[in-house]
Every structure is written in structure tokens, then in C-alpha cells.
């Protein structure tokens, strides 16, 4: 029988992988995707707990997370396009114009 712990374990692994990706990748879009991965692991946790607790709230939360992710995608990608236009790169290490 699949328990809530199984789902949460998978979610944990996904989250850790997403963290690793965010910390190591240099391409801003890939980092963005890794963030989406982390968000999705959280979504999985929410939905599994929602099902386990027989409560709808978690799924509503996932719904909102998706809304936020969509907004984030729109604005984030617009930012990246703007940045790329200025620096011809979306390497996060090049985002250092305010460094000195």
C-alpha cells in the first residue's frame, strides 16, 4: 500500500535535486527550471497530504502555487530577455553590475 510517506519521500528527493540544481547551474533559465522542480515537489507534498488528511485545502494551495509559478514564469522570463538584451548572456555570474 502506498502511504503518504512514499509521496513525501519522492517529494523530498525532488526538492533536494532542485536545490542542487539551483546552487550549481549557471544558466538562469535552468535555475528557473530547478526552482519549478522544487515548487513541484512542494506541490506533490501538498496534494499527498491533502489526500491523506482528506482535506481540500492543500490542493487549493497547489492551485495558488501554480498561479504564482505562472506569474513568476512570465515576469522571470521577461527579466531574462531584458538581461540578455543588455549583456548577451543569461549566466547568473554575469549578473554582477551592482557588485562593485
Amino acid at each position, binding site marked *: *500500500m*502506498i502511504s503518504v*510517506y512514499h*509521496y*513525501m*519521500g*519522492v517529494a*523530498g*528527493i*525532488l526538492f*533536494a*535535486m*532542485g*536545490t*542542487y*540544481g539551483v*546552487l*550549481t*547551474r*549557471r*544558466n538562469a*533559465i*535552468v535555475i*528557473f*527550471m*530547478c526552482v*519549478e*522542480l522544487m515548487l*513541484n515537489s512542494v*506541490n506533490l507534498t501538498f*496534494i*499527498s*497530504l*491533502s*489526500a*491523506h*488528511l*482528506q*482535506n*481540500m*485545502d492543500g*490542493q*487549493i494551495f*497547489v*492551485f*495558488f502555487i*501554480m*498561479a*504564482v509559478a505562472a*506569474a513568476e*514564469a*512570465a*515576469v522571470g*522570463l*521577461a527579466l*531574462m*530577455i531584458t538581461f540578455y*538584451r543588455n549583456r548577451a548572456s*543569461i*549566466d547568473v555570474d554575469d549578473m554582477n553590475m551592482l557588485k562593485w
Partner: protein
Amino acid sequence: MEIIFFYLVAFVVVVSGLLVILCKSPINCALGLVNTFFCLAIFYVMLHAPFMAAIQIMVYAGAIMVLILFVIMLLNLGTAERKRYTQGIVWSAVASLMVLANVIFFLKRGRVTGAEGDITTFMVESVGHTELIGRTMFTEFILPFEIASILLLVAIVGAVVLAKKEV
């Protein structure tokens, strides 16, 4: 039977997650992520949340990832990125492993309390998941829903303003 299926899907999820974080080409990462979303949608179906599964594929796979792919192709970012130095990778690995350890430890120790709510599997099957979601969303969560819509509007405006060449 179910548990085997679960492990199969979980394996695919992990492998596609690894694709996301390890692939050199952003397009391949994106494909891995799409696959992850797809598998997660399967999980949602298994968790008796078909509406969420559909939404997951529609929003993430159908909209967000397409947008990301569009941007990747628009900026022609097929080339491999520069490598991060080893120290950073090691530390990041340590950090993410610690995250994983935390989660595992928490799961080992923590006790999620049993079923309490009234949204039973039977109820989901009989009434329909969509309707249940709708009821909750438009009664209890109407205000956050409206706020989320405003957020999306703002995001649209912001994206347009940012991406336009001359404002």
C-alpha cells in the same frame, strides 16, 4: 501492483529530475522537467486529484514550459554553459544532501496524523473532484483566488513592460 507502479513512476521522476539538474543543454533540461511534470500528474491521479493532474499538465507542461522553451529558443541558448568550480559543486551537493537528510529524518520521526477531513475518496469519486475544488475555492478561498487573479494581471503587465524594447 499499485506499489510497483508507484516505484516505476517514482524512478522515472527521479531520473527526469536528474536530467533537469545535470543536462548541459537547457532544452534537454526542459524536456526532463516536462517529463517530471507528467509523472507528477500521474501521482496526482493516483492521489485521486485528477483535476490537479490536468491542471498540472495544462499549466506547467502546456504553458510555463512552453514559454520557457520559447525563451530558450528565442535567445538561442543551445550552447553549454560554463562549468561551476568544484568547490561550489561540492558545497551545493552537501547542502542538498543535508536537505534530503532533513526530509528523511523528518519522515522517519514525524507522525502525520490520520484522516480527519470529510473529503473521502468515495466522495471524490461520486461528487467529482472538479466540483469539490470549485466549491472550496469559491467559498472558503474566494479572496485569495481574487488576489491570485490580480497577481496574474500584474505579472502580465510587468512582463509586457519588461520585455518591450522601448516603453
